[in-house]
């Protein structure tokens, strides 16, 4: 047997022939299907909703400026910021914590700063890679932890109030048991909305219930 050339035209020709074979295409399609069809997302139940009897309602909400930054491992992530910000704004308005939200400073100087830091599991990529190589048989369950810090500065020299809320989102790929104590969601957007709604509810409720919160008179116990 003579020497074989490695790479160059020989390898490119071989690659082209294999790619054009129907069997290989079917296998590749199956791999893609296995990876996409069996992926699922789960929102951890530990945080959950704020109980009705624990809700601090803001009686006279005031306008505030919203500063929001999504981070990945502590580094600003502009694409994720753009995606999450409208969802976050909707949830803050829905709670009635403020009368209106603005991108620029407002009369009175109230400012709400929200930093949402996504801390992906360190070996998540390797787990997903192995799942792909084994056609989904070696399933993977990876977690994204979220540390969300809310800081409200009422303006006029008032003391700022900070609350940090933790949450967790799981992604299951391939053959793997779902995580315990978690709620399955069908779509990624649904998962993001649920995580954001719950962290906003807990974070702002903590601020509204703080003795230093003088943004407006408040009633407690959902009254």
């Amino acid at each position, binding site marked *: 047997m003579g020497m074989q050339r490695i790479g160059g035209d020989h390898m490119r020709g071989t690659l*082209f022939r294999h*790619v*054009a074979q*129907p069997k290989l*295409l079917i296998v*590749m399609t199956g791999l893609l299907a296995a990876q996409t069809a069996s992926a699922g997302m789960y929102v951890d139940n530990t945080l959950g909703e704020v109980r009705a009897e624990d809700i601090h309602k803001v009686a006279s909400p005031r306008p505030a*400026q*919203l*500063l*929001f*930054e999504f981070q*990945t*491992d502590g*580094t*600003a*992530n*502009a*694409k*994720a*910021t*753009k995606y999450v910000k409208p969802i976050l704004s909707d949830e803050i308005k829905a709670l009635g914590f403020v009368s209106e939200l603005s*991108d*620029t*400073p407002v009369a009175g100087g109230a400012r709400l*700063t929200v*930093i949402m830091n996504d801390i992906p599991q360190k070996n998540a*990529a*390797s787990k997903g*890679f192995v799942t792909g190589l084994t056609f989904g048989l070696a399933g993977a369950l990876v977690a994204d932890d979220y540390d969300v810090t809310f800081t409200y500065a009422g303006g006029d020299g008032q003391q700022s109030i900070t609350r940090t809320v933790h949450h967790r989102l799981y992604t299951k790929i391939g053959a793997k048991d779902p995580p315990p104590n978690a709620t399955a969601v069908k779509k990624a957007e649904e998962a993001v909305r649920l995580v954001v709604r719950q962290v906003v509810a807990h974070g702002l409720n903590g601020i509204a219930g703080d003795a230093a919160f003088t943004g407006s008179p408040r009633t407690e116990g959902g009254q």
Partner: protein
Amino acid sequence: MMRRPYVLGLSLFVAACAMAPVPVQTMSAKAVNAISDARIPAMRVGQFELSKTLPGKRDRSLAVRAATIRPEGGSFSHYLAETVKAQLAAAGRLDERSDTIVSGEIVGSDVGSAIGADSGHGLLAVEFAVHRGDTQLFKKTITVEGKWNSSFIGGVAIPAAEHGYMALYPEIVAKLFFDEDLRRVLKR
């Protein structure tokens, strides 16, 4: 006929490599707080450009393995100008009629995604200038660098490099407005 699946596969591969342009970080808490704390007068944003000492194509995109990082607006210098403008607006210090003007020239820009812990790196260096009328109040080169964990998997390494590098833009704006020399001259 057998070539069609190959063409489709190639199209998907190319599509995956052509990442969407990165939007401006409209509000960096660190940069906005730096501007607010500086108690500086309102200003407007002047010209931002890439230094002539750098290849012109580096203003439009940066290569990371088989992909390219591209900013919204078509150039990194425009992106930097918009980032400065967004932070000034969020801090209530943007005034298009002000005679105080901030401008800049990108003199260093680099991104790398070697494999391993802390082996992804990015660098951004900008020569900023602030003028009031015809008087130059400030001129200084400010540099920021970032490191992140990279991966042998391109699907992980490329997005990590993208947001690691692009995060340098709000970071350099924060560093500019934390600069004591700038704060001193603007308070005069």
